[in-house]
C-alpha cells in the first residue's frame, strides 16, 4: 500500500514539477543560510562559510537533480520524454509518418485478416467433445478411395468392430413437404441413430432417435432443425408428436435440433430435417454392392489410435469379403480424422497464402527500416550532438526503439481496422466449399497475433537503424557537419532494396502463374455451350409417388411439353444420373462379343447421362456421327444408347461405333444399340476433367429407364433448358407453368450453367485474387521503398551532382546516372527473385494443384513480371532523377 501511495505521488510529481521545484529551492536556500550562519559563528570568513556549506551539501544542482529523481519516476519520465520527443519528430515529418503507418497497416492488416481465416479454419478446435476421437468412415473401393458404404456393410461394420465407440452413417436427400402452405422442397439428411449421440449433440426439445429406430421397416420419425421449427412451425412448443407429410408419407416429429449444429465432413451438410436411414425409400438400400452415397462418421474408443482402428476395420472388411466375395470384393473401410477431412483441401492453399502475406509484411518492415535508416542518417548529426552531451548509446537506442514501436502500434491499430474490413471481404470471396467458414471472426487470438507482429515488426526495423547509429564514429559525424554522409552508408539500404525487389518478384510470379492458370482454365473447352443454359431440380407431386410406369412417363411427357411451351425456351430435357460439373453417376457395361464379366470390377465404366431428346440442343453439344434420341425412342422402341467420342475411341478404336451393341449391367439380357456419337462433355470441372481416369460418356433415354428407377425419378430429377431470356425471367415463367400444371410439384436449386462452371473455379479464383492483391501491395511498397532510397541518394549527392554539372556534365548524364543506380538494384533483385521464384514455384505446384496448364518456370509469366517490376522501379526512380537534373550547380558550389 505504502509503495502504491508513493508511486501515485511520484506519478503526480512528474506532471506537477514546477511548484515543487520552487518549494525545494526555498528549502535548500534556508538550509544553506542556517549552515552559513553556523559556520560564521564558528569563525569562518563569509566566503569560507558559504563554500563549506555548499561542499557539505554535495553541490546545489546535484542535490536538486537527485531530489527531482525521487520526486518523479525517472524511467517513466524518460519514456514519456521519448514518446513526446518521438511524437514531435514524427509530426515534424508527416509524410514519413503517414507512409510508414499506412505501409505497416497494409502489412499488418493483410496478415491479421488472413490469420483470422487460418485461425478459424485450421487452428480452432472443433466444437465437439474430444474431437480428436472423431473420424470419417468410407468404403475404399478399387476405383474410389473414399466410396460410399452400403447399408448391409454398415450394419456389419457396426457389429463386428472392436475399436469404435460408435459408428454412424448419413446421406443427403430432399423431401417434398406438403400440408404446410405451398409445397416445398426441404433438404434433409438420412442418419443412423448413433449419429447425434456420437457427436455429443443434444436436442433443444424432445429426443434423438433411439437405437433400432433407424432400422428398415420402423415407424417414420423426423427430427427438425430449430430454424425449420421457427420458420415453418412458428416455434410452437407443442410440435412434438405432430406429423410432417414428406413425399406423401407421414413422419412423426420427435425432437428439435439446436440451430448452431453444423458439420462439414464427407457429404454431410446441416439440413432442416433428419430422418432415420431405414426410411430411405430406395430399393437398392439393402443391396450390399450398392453405392448410394452413404458415408460414415465414427468415434474411436478412448485410447485407441487411428492406426489400431484402421487395422481393426481392415480385418472386419476382409472377413466380409470372404463372406460376400462378389459384392464386397476389394472393399475396405477407410478412416480419416475429422480435422484432416475438413481442411485437407484448403490447408495447402491457406498456408501458401499465409506465406505470401508474410512476405508482404516483411517487405513493409523493410520499407520502414529503410525509411528509418534514411532518417537515422539525416539525424546522425542530432545523435552525435546528443552523444557528445552525455546521452548513453542505450539511451539513444531506446529513443529509436520507442519511435519505431510507436509507428508499429499505430500501424497495428490501423491494420486491425483494415483487417476487420478485410476479413469481411475475404468471407465474401471465400469459396463456398471452404469448411468452417462460419468460424472465421476476429478473436482474442487474432488480436494477440496483431499485437505480436506489431511488436516484432517495431523491434525488427527499429533495431536496424539503431545498430547503425552505434557503429558510427562520433567525431567523424561531428566533423562532417551538415554535409551528409559518405556513400558507404548506403550499403545496407541497397541490400534492403534488392531484397524487396526479389521478394516482390516472387509474389508477382506466384500471382502471375495463378492468373495464367485461370486464363487457361477459362479457355478450356467445356464440350457444350453454357451460355443460356439453366438447370433446376424438379420434384413430382407427392400424390404421383408410387404411380405406375405408364402414369410416370405420361407425367414426364406433360411436364416436358409444359416447359417447352414457356416463351423463350429453345430446348428442354430432363436429366437423371450425371449432370456435368454438378453430379455424377456411373454405368457398368460390357461389349457384345466379350464374355459376361464375373464381377463389376471386370466391367467397363462410363459416366451415365439419362436424358430426353432435347438434351443435345439444350446443352449445345455437337453431334459427331449418327443421330441423337428422338421422341420415338420410347419405352416401346428398341434399347438405344449414344456415346461420346472418348468412349468411341477408347472402346471401338477406329471402327465405326454406329450399330455396335453394348450390354448395360441393369439390362444384361437386352443389349443396347449405339445410334450416335456426340462430342465429349467436361464432366469433372474445368481443371479436373482431362486428368480424371473416367471420361467415357454414355447417354440413355429417360423413357427407357427400368420401372424401379422411374419411381425414383419422381422424387427429384434435374431439368436442363436453354432460354433466350435472362435467368430470373426464365425461372419465374417455368415455375408459373409448372404450378399451373400441378401446384404440388416443387422447383428447387435454380442455377445458370455459367455460374456452376465458375463455381468449380472458386477456390482457384480466391487464391488468385488474394495472391494478386498481396503481390500488388508488395509492388506498391517496394516502389515506395525504391523511391525513398533513390530520393535520398539524390539529396546526399547534391554536391557531387552540382560539381559534375559545373565541370560540364550534361543534365542527361545526371539523369542516366541516377537511373542507373536504381536499375542496378532492380536488376540484382530480379535475378535473385527469379532464382527464388523457381524454387518456390516448385513448392507451390507440389503442395497443391493450384496451377493449371502452366509450368512453374513459364517464361512468358517471368518476362511479364520482370517487365512490370522494371517499369514500376523505373517510375519510382524517375521523379528523383528529374529532381537531380534540376540541381543548380552555382548554388551548390556557393554553399560549400
Amino acid at each position, binding site marked *: 500500500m*505504502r*509503495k502504491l*501511495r*508513493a508511486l501515485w*505521488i*511520484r506519478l503526480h510529481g512528474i506532471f506537477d514539477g514546477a511548484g515543487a521545484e520552487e*518549494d*525545494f529551492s*526555498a*528549502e*535548500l536556500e*534556508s*538550509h544553506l*543560510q*542556517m*549552515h552559513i*550562519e*553556523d559556520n560564521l559563528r564558528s569563525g569562518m570568513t563569509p566566503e569560507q562559510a558559504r563554500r563549506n556549506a555548499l561542499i*557539505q*551539501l*554535495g*553541490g546545489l544542482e*546535484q*542535490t536538486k537533480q*537527485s*531530489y527531482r*529523481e*525521487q*520526486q518523479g519516476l525517472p524511467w517513466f519520465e524518460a519514456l514519456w520524454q521519448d514518446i513526446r520527443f518521438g511524437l514531435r519528430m514524427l509530426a515534424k515529418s508527416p509524410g514519413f509518418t503517414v507512409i510508414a503507418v499506412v505501409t505497416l497497416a497494409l502489412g499488418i492488416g493483410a496478415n491479421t485478416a488472413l490469420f483470422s481465416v487460418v485461425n478459424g479454419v485450421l487452428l480452432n478446435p472443433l466444437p465437439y467433445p474430444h474431437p480428436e476421437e472423431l473420424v470419417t468412415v468410407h468404403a475404399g473401393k478399387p476405383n474410389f478411395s473414399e466410396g460410399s458404404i452400403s447399408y448391409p456393410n454398415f450394419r456389419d461394420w457396426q457389429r463386428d468392430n472392436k475399436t469404435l465407440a460408435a459408428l454412424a452413417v448419413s446421406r443427403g436427400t430432399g423431401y417434398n413437404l406438403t400440408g404446410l402452405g405451398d409445397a416445398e422442397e426441404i433438404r434433409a439428411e438420412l442418419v443412423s441413430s448413433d449419429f447425434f449421440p456420437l457427436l455429443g449433440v443434444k436436442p433443444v426439445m424432445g429426443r434423438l432417435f433411439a437405437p433400432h429406430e433407424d432400422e428398415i421397416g420402423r415407424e417414420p420419425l423426423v427430427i427438425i432443425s430449430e430454424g425449420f421449427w421457427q420458420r415453418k412451425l412458428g416455434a410452437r412448443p407443442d410440435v412434438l408428436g405432430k406429423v410432417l407429410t414428406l413425399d406423401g408419407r407421414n413422419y412423426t416429429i420427435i425432437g428439435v435440433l439446436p440451430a448452431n449444429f453444423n458439420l462439414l465432413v464427407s457429404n454431410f451438410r446441416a439440413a432442416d430435417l433428419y430422418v432415420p436411414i431405414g426410411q430411405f425409400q430406395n430399393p437398392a438400400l439393402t443391396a450390399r454392392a450398392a453405392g448410394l452415397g452413404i458415408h460414415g462418421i465414427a468415434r474411436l474408443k478412448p485410447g485407441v489410435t487411428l492406426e489400431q482402428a484402421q487395422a481393426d476395420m481392415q480385418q472386419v472388411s476382409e472377413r466380409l469379403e470372404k463372406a460376400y466375395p462378389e459384392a464386397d470384393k476389394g472393399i475396405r473401410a477407410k478412416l480419416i480424422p475429422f480435422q484432416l477431412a475438413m481442411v485437407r483441401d484448403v490447408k495447402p492453399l491457406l498456408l501458401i497464402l499465409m506465406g505470401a502475406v508474410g512476405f508482404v509484411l516483411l517487405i513493409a518492415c523493410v520499407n520502414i527500416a529503410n525509411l528509418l535508416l534514411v532518417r537515422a542518417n539525416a539525424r546522425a548529426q542530432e545523435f552525435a550532438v546528443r552523444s557528445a552531451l552525455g546521452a548513453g548509446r542505450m539511451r539513444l537506442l531506446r529513443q529509436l526503439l520507442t519511435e519505431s514501436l510507436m509507428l508499429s502500434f499505430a500501424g497495428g491499430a490501423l491494420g486491425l481496422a483494415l483487417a476487420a474490413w478485410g476479413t469481411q471481404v475475404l468471407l465474401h470471396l471465400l469459396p463456398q466449399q471452404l469448411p468452417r467458414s462460419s468460424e472465421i471472426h476476429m478473436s482474442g487470438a487474432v488480436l494477440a497475433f496483431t499485437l505480436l507482429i506489431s511488436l516484432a515488426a517495431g523491434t525488427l526495423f527499429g533495431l536496424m537503424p539503431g545498430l547503425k547509429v552505434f557503429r558510427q564514429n562520433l567525431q567523424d559525424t561531428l566533423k562532417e557537419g551538415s554535409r551528409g554522409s559518405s556513400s558507404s552508408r548506403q550499403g545496407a539500404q541497397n541490400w534492403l532494396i534488392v531484397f524487396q525487389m526479389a521478394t516482390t518478384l516472387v509474389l508477382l510470379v506466384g500471382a502471375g502463374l495463378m492468373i495464367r492458370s485461370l486464363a487457361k482454365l477459362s479457355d478450356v473447352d467445356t464440350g457444350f455451350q453454357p451460355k443460356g443454359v439453366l438447370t433446376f431440380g424438379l420434384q413430382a407431386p407427392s400424390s404421383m409417388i408410387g404411380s405406375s410406369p405408364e402414369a410416370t412417363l405420361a407425367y414426364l411427357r406433360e411436364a416436358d411439353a409444359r416447359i417447352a411451351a414457356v416463351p423463350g425456351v429453345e430446348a428442354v430435357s430432363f436429366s437423371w444420373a450425371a449432370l456435368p460439373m454438378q453430379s455424377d453417376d456411373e454405368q457398368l457395361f460390357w461389349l457384345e462379343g466379350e464374355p459376361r464379366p464375373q464381377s463389376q470390377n471386370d466391367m467397363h465404366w462410363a459416366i451415365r447421362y439419362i436424358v430426353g431428346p432435347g438434351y443435345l440442343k439444350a446443352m449445345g453439344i455437337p453431334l459427331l456421327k449418327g443421330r441423337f434420341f428422338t421422341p420415338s425412342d420410347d419405352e416401346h422402341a428398341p434399347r438405344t444408347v449414344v456415346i461420346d467420342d472418348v468412349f468411341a475411341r477408347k472402346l471401338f478404336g477406329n471402327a465405326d461405333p454406329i450399330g455396335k451393341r453394348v450390354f448395360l449391367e441393369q439390362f444384361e439380357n437386352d443389349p443396347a444399340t449405339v445410334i450416335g456419337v456426340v462430342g465429349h462433355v467436361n464432366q469433372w470441372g474445368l481443371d479436373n476433367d482431362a486428368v480424371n481416369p473416367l471420361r467415357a460418356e454414355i447417354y440413355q433415354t429417360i423413357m427407357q429407364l427400368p420401372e424401379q428407377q422411374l419411381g425414383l425419378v419422381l422424387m427429384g430429377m434435374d431439368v436442363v433448358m436453354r432460354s433466350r431470356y435472362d435467368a430470373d425471367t426464365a425461372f419465374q415463367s417455368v415455375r408459373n407453368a409448372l404450378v399451373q400444371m400441378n401446384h404440388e410439384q416443387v422447383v428447387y436449386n435454380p442455377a445458370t450453367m455459367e455460374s456452376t462452371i465458375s463455381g468449380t473455379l472458386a477456390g482457384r479464383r480466391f487464391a488468385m485474387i488474394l495472391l494478386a492483391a498481396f503481390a500488388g501491395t508488395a509492388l506498391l511498397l517496394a516502389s515506395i521503398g525504391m523511391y525513398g532510397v533513390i530520393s535520398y541518394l539524390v539529396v546526399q549527392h547534391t554536391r557531387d551532382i552540382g560539381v559534375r554539372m559545373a565541370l560540364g556534365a550534361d543534365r542527361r548524364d545526371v539523369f542516366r546516372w541516377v537511373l542507373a543506380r536504381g536499375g542496378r538494384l532492380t536488376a540484382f533483385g530480379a535475378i535473385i527473385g527469379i532464382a527464388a521464384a523457381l524454387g518456390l514455384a516448385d513448392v507451390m505446384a507440389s503442395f497443391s494443384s493450384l496451377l493449371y496448364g502452366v509450368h512453374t518456370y513459364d517464361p512468358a509469366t517471368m518476362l511479364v513480371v520482370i517487365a512490370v517490376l522494371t517499369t514500376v522501379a523505373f517510375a519510382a526512380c524517375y521523379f528523383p532523377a528529374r529532381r537531380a537534373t534540376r540541381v543548380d550547380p552555382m548554388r551548390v558550389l556557393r554553399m560549400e
Partner: protein
Amino acid sequence: MGDKTDVWQGTLALMVLKTLETMGPIHGYGIARRIEQTSGHLLALNYGTLYPALLKLEQEGYIASEWGLSENNRKAKFYKLTRAGRKQLEREARDWEQATAILARFLAPAKES
C-alpha cells in the same frame, strides 16, 4: 575528513525517523546536524542526500512537513513523524536490532579464537 564511514543504504531513513522521534518537529538542516552529532562525527553525511530521503519518507506517508520559523526566525521547512512513521520506526528498529544481533553472533566467536 579522516576516517569517516559512508552512510549505509537504507539506514539513513531509520536515522531520520529516530531523530524526528527524539527531537520532535525539526528542519532538514537540524536533522543533518543532529545525525552528525549523534554519530560522533564518524559518519560522512552529504547533507544533500538527506533531502531525497526525506521526500521519499514523506511520499510513503511516514513523515509530514510544513513551513515554519526556525529558532533564528528564519523560514524553514519542518518535518515531523506521523503515526504511520512511528510504527515504521518501531518496526525498523526491531529489524535492525535483530539483524545486528545475528551478525554479532557470527562475529563473536571469531574474536575468541
